[in-house]
């Protein structure tokens, strides 16, 4: 798929701003004129850190946010302003449609995947009468490890870390970790270090048979893998908006199949049942309180629209093609150690033989304009296994990264590796 970066022309337009008085006040706002977008502009950097936050954003995302900021927000459930559509409901429908969730109002918005995981893990623990056993894998992010270790430190649970084999979690290893008191499993769907996707269908089936509450952390797969929550045997699925769903940072959430399995962990205004002193237990109010991130949710809906327009097949082809570009360039040499040569996601982690990962990242950024992520990637267990806990360099293009950019970056990385080794 050819993707062009666009010049974004900003011009001023004028709207009538009604202040409630008879006199109208003219106010000017900057606005993106999408009709005048033109191809041509190359990004100033070779940005290969999409597994952290995607960039660039699709022009439609930028335009949607810009347009929305020019008008008052219609407050979900609270206001009759009606000056714009209910962006929260629109985003909820977009997420539900994209992930094929059976119930739209079981899609809950949060600040990000970490926030969603905290809500689910804490909410589940509140509902448990006594201490319980939980299973995670060594691929987990600190957004899973820390909430569970905190519960463990408080005597609320014990945690078993299932080691991955190669880059994947073997369902049999999860089955072997089950105990009579196992009540919760939280597993990364896609590894942010190794780019591997776990078989959450097989794992979910065996956990379902044991009545274990299963949360899949889809921070790295949402927007890349085809996810059908109507069919997957999951109790909850967590997503973030700012990575491969192409929304703004500050967006994310989760889907929960049976809301009664987790208690609400935040209370406040919902725009419903205002005389009732406790948090309403209807959905989605049970897990949402306070004002939403309106611009963020508008960007999330626009990002999903871009993905739907692009199509799952094109996304899958892009992943294979981009990973292939890097892996071919990195093959046939022992100067580049790649930690997973068969990634399912556009995530490739490596170290150069004679250069510390931070030095590699510095050289790539300062000499070649290549933005990578170095060090530990908030997933300490897997680093202990693959690189002795020292960390590594991670590159992660997106479907908006042109192939030629990938080729150029791959050649630059090989050049650095060969230069260091031959010196």
């Amino acid at each position: 798929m050819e993707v062009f970066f666009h010049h974004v022309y900003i011009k001023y337009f004028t709207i009538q701003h009604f202040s409630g008085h008879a006199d109208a006040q003219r106010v000017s706002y900057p606005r993106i004129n999408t009709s005048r977008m033109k191809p041509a502009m190359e990004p100033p950097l070779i940005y290969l850190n999409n597994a952290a936050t995607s960039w660039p954003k699709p022009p439609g995302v930028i335009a949607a946010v810009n347009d929305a900021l020019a008008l008052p927000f219609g407050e979900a459930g609270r206001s009759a302003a009606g000056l714009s559509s209910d962006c929260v409901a629109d985003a909820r429908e977009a997420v539900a449609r994209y992930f094929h969730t059976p119930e739209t109002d079981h899609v809950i918005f949060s600040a990000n995947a970490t926030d969603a995981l905290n809500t689910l893990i804490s909410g589940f623990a509140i509902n448990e009468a006594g201490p319980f056993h939980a299973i995670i894998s060594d691929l987990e992010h600190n957004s899973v490890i820390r909430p569970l270790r905190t519960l463990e430190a408080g005597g609320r649970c014990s945690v078993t870390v299932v080691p991955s084999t190669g880059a994947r979690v073997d369902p049999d290893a999860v089955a072997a970790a089950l105990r009579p008191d196992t009540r919760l499993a939280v597993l990364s769907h896609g590894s942010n270090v190794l780019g591997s996707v776990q078989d959450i269908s097989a794992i979910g089936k065996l956990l379902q048979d044991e009545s274990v509450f299963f949360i899949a952390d889809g921070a790295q797969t949402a927007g890349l893998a085809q996810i059908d929550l109507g069919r997957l045997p999951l109790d909850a699925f967590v997503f973030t908006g700012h990575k491969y769903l192409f929304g703004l940072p500050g967006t994310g959430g989760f889907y929960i199949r049976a809301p009664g399995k987790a208690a609400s962990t935040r209370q406040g205004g919902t725009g419903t049942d205002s005389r009732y002193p406790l948090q309403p237990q209807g959905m989605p109010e049970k897990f949402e309180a306070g004002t939403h991130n309106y611009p963020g949710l508008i960007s999330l809906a626009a990002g999903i629209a871009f993905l739907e327009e692009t199509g799952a097949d094109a996304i899958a082809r892009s992943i294979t093609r981009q990973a292939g570009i890097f892996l071919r360039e990195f093959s046939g040499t022992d100067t580049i150690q790649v930690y997973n040569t068969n990634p399912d996601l556009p995530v490739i982690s490596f170290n150069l033989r004679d250069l510390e990962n931070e030095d590699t990242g510095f050289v790539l950024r300062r000499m070649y304009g290549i933005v990578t992520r170095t060090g530990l990637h908030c997933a300490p267990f897997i680093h202990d296994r693959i690189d002795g806990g020292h960390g590594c360099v991670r590159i992660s293009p997106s479907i908006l990264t042109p192939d030629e950019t990938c080729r150029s970056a791959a050649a630059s990385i090989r050049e650095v590796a060969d230069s260091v080794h031959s010196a």
Partner: protein
Amino acid sequence: MSIVREKNFKNCADGRVKKEYLLSEPFTKETACSLSSFGSANVMEFLKKPFFTLVRPPGMNMRAVLGENTLEVWYEPADLPFSEPVIYRLLEGDPVVQDPS
């Protein structure tokens, strides 16, 4: 040479603190030599641009591209209050500072 100001500050995932300094003039080979008493220094001239790196165990290191006006330093948090003033003085060519340890 001197540090004009701190450009960036970051608490890193491995627990260290990263600071990027704006220098009053470009970092040179002589600058690298002036810092060499502080740790194990290396200039890699074979890269696209000459690259300076210095390691001071247990957890401090610094990096610069020769010819550019910035210096990146990673500190152990406990070491920061002691090491940072020394780096300022070394870059200013303070002859008093010989062995910071």
